[in-house]
């Protein structure tokens, strides 16, 4: 019997290695798998490269992991936001490497990784300093920047429901980067609000089919703090 449901955060994060590239879902606090992210502190992996839209806020979740000194580099579109104090401190102190990627390019680089596409060309960023050092080719009279696929060793996603085959649904704008990241990592771990029996989630309503998911863990949490 296939059973991807694990009983604890520790079990969900077993085997994560130092130096891993970790994709973390969420847009701000919504859809962000904070329990799994904080679980990495206990788990102990260090020298991590984190891929996320934002660079954490307050002193929870990603900010807490960064504060614990586990993150070497962050790849994101919007590091500065209300409450991104830990990021600001570490970045100013030179303790954190930063790669800024336009948000759509960030999503597409992971989509490409999940779909077996090595690289692609996009007009986004052409002629800007984010294109410096990158190959540029003209298509239909317009310069396009070459961007590489971005693959994770680990993806941490937050979903609304999950079943033992790893099928997932998301809630409202909590979907955001989660389904894309789920496709783009060697090991995909989902924290869910509800475990459903196999067949209970209507097939038409499954957002991420279980093929992309390795482990599912239920966490007790309320609505995202906004």
């Amino acid at each position, binding site marked *: 019997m296939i059973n991807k449901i694990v009983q604890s955060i520790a079990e969900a994060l077993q085997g994560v290695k130092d130096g891993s590239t970790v994709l973390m879902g969420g847009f701000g*606090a919504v859809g962000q798998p904070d329990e799994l992210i904080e679980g990495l502190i206990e788990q102990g992996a260090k020298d991590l490269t984190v891929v996320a839209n934002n660079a954490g806020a307050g002193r929870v979740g990603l900010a807490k992991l960064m504060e614990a000194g586990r993150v070497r580099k962050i790849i994101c579109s919007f590091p500065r936001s209300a409450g991104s104090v830990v990021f600001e401190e570490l970045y100013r102190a030179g303790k954190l490497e930063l790669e800024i990627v336009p948000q759509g390019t960030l999503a597409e680089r992971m989509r490409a990784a999940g779909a077996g596409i090595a690289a692609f060309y996009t007009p986004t960023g052409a002629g800007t300093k984010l294109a410096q050092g990158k190959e540029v080719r003209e298509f239909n009279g317009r310069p396009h920047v070459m961007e590489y696929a971005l693959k994770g060793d680990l993806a941490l996603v937050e979903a609304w429901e999950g079943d033992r085959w790893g099928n997932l649904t998301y809630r409202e704008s909590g979907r955001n980067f989660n389904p894309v990241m789920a496709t783009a990592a060697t090991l995909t771990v989902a924290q869910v609000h509800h475990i459903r029996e196999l067949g209970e989630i209507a097939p038409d309503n499954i957002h991420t089919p279980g093929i992309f998911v390795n482990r599912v863990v239920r966490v007790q949490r309320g609505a995202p703090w906004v």
Partner: protein
Amino acid sequence: MTWNRTQMAARVAQDIPEGWFVNLGIGIPTMVADHVPAEREVILHSENGILGMGPAPAPDKVNAWLVNAGKQPVTLRPGGSFFHHADSFAMIRGGHIDLCVLGAFEVAENGDIANWATSENDTAPAVGGAMDLAAGAKRLWVVMEHTTKDGKPKLVESCGYPLTAMGVVQRVYTNLAVVDVVPGRGFVVKEIVPGLSLAELQAKTGAKLNTDA
């Protein structure tokens, strides 16, 4: 006179026809939504995976799962939908969004826009979806003050700040005027606030203003 922020937003809204898919940036662009009459169906897109976004909820009706690109609580109109980030940016990058309205630090007469970083050595810039929107939307309109707080022109011959995208701005709404950006012609004045002459507007502008007259 000058237009205030609310009037600038209302002036932009006036030009948005029924049926357009529109993405509004943070700041004055967000206020544009409040000035589209309810009976005119304009579908708002939010980069974090929403089409058919509605106004902010009443304080006791906040849904923590439903936020806009600025992470503020919003609502969903009947007919609205949710989708993931790659689909959301396929809408933007694939030319499916009819209009994007953004704020800016500078707009150049060739349509270049600078709106994401204020200097080359900005320590930790944040680009978000600005470059995707600027490069991918069918139309890009900018709404911004005509000059900086200390009177420096923001409509210029070429941008001094780091670019967001090249040659993409089609129209600029300021507190003083509505100005089109026309390939080969540069800035073309469409409308000036009452009481201000073209010469006075030109004096506050860092590039040549043309007129259709």
